[in-house]
């Protein structure tokens, strides 16, 4: 029973993370409910507004995030086997891809500001129709909230890589820590996988 304690600890931590993720799903669930309501109220204008988004960048970002999720999965596997270098490299790759996502998102925001699409940077009159304005409001709130989550994730991943590298998180004993952050990162990814079709592909 000597190693029962760490595995018990691991299960406890994971369970806590799962519950936190459940509450995160409810948080974005509220936004999805708003998106559904908008779509039902103004199907046409929402579709028209959605057509003006850069779905190519969104698709690229989907690929970037999915790849980073793969990297995180590899990091967890490496951590469980006690491979420090593999873990650090995979974590840094995932964090780097996360930064790539944010960079692409910033480029996209920039383009939308120039095209007078992004609320808070665009006068209300510039929108095609009030519902288009509403849709872009929702787009901004949802993607910004998601970007905040990505930023937090990048910081967590990089911090984890640093701690593993410095051996302040010993492997494979500390693999649960990698697993917990990995779970969070997967959720950030999954939320994007829902946001992308809801925002970009409802045309």
């Amino acid at each position, binding site marked *: 029973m000597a190693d029962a304690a760490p595995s018990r600890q691991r299960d406890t931590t994971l369970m806590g993370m799962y519950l936190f993720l459940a509450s995160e799903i409810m948080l974005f669930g509220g936004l999805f409910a708003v998106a559904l309501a908008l779509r039902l109220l103004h199907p046409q204008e929402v579709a028209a507004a959605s057509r003006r988004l850069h779905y190519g960048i969104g698709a690229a970002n989907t690929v970037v995030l999915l790849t980073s999720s793969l990297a995180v999965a590899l990091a967890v596997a490496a951590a469980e086997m006690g491979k420090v270098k593999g873990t650090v490299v995979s974590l840094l790759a995932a964090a780097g891809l996360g930064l790539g996502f944010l960079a692409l998102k910033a480029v996209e925001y920039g383009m939308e500001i120039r095209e007078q699409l992004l609320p808070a940077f665009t006068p209300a009159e510039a929108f095609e129709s009030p*519902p288009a304005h509403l849709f872009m409001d929702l787009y901004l709130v949802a993607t910004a909230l998601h970007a905040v989550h990505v930023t937090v994730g990048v910081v967590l991943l990089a911090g984890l890589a640093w701690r593993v590298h410095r051996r302040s998180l010993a492997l494979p004993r500390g693999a649960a820590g990698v697993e917990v952050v990995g779970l969070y990162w997967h959720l950030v990814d999954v939320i994007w996988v829902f946001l992308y079709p809801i925002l970009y592909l409802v045309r």
Partner: protein
Amino acid sequence: MNRLLTFWGGQASHHAHQVDTLFLGLAALAVLLSAPVFILIPWFAVKYRRGKPADRTHAADRSVWLEVSWAAIPFLATLAFYVWSTRLYIDLYQPPAEALAINAVGKQWMWKFQHPGGQAEINELHVPAGRPVEVTLASQDVIHSLFVPALRLKQDVVPGRYTRLWFTADTPGSYALVCAQFCGADHAVMGGRLVVQTPADYARWLEGMGTDGSLAAQGAVLFRTRGCSGCHGSAGTVHAPPLEGLYGRPVPLADGSVVTADDQYLRDSILLPQAQVAAGYPAIMPTFQNVLGEEDVLKLVAYIKSLANAPPPPRDRDDGGPP
């Protein structure tokens, strides 16, 4: 404070009687269901007081049958009341066709009413006794709620949509009419009275009120002065849908769906013209949101309603619009 607020209470309609009966029935049910608890707990507390000798043998720890029955029986009893109350409620959504149509606009912090003949009043609503009245409610700003305690009725007034409230007041008299939904600083004084009059008195009152013509006629004036006629009129130079014969008919939209041209559709078409564009027409109509208040829009709706059975006018040019 507003002296008019003092006209409260009373039963001004058959519906009010029915609600009171329902309420008394429910109160009796509540007493019946809670009586075991209110009687038994003090009785047990005395009878089985600690240290007091009493027969305490065969005290059960559970009894599924007992528990299921005290879950199910009260529930079934409430279901009977559910059917009763839901029927009364559904009636509130089925106004008779011949109801007198009155418009109400709530704004911080007053009520404005418009009668079909064009008579307008503030914080007072005159209605004839014995005749169904259907009030169409619109809000200029925040959510209000038109509440007449004597009718046992209220309806929230939500900006952006028309809500409705209908009633038949039986007893002539003066009753409180208030705002029930918190609407800002002077919420508590946003009220006045509902004056129920005999039909003859009501007719006299209508005559005594000055008016600039019926609601529809006032709408027609707005139609010309606010520039609507420039596009929608017979001399219109722009390709815009004709409004004659529109009300109550199905309208095909640009996105392929079909809506009925009801009050809400007409209102939205004036204030949010880009939302539901009629098929075959360019989406060029500007919004009148900052130009027209809800009262004006209601007048325009009344005007368009009055054209429901008018023949489509000959156009100056054939613009190839849909039939």
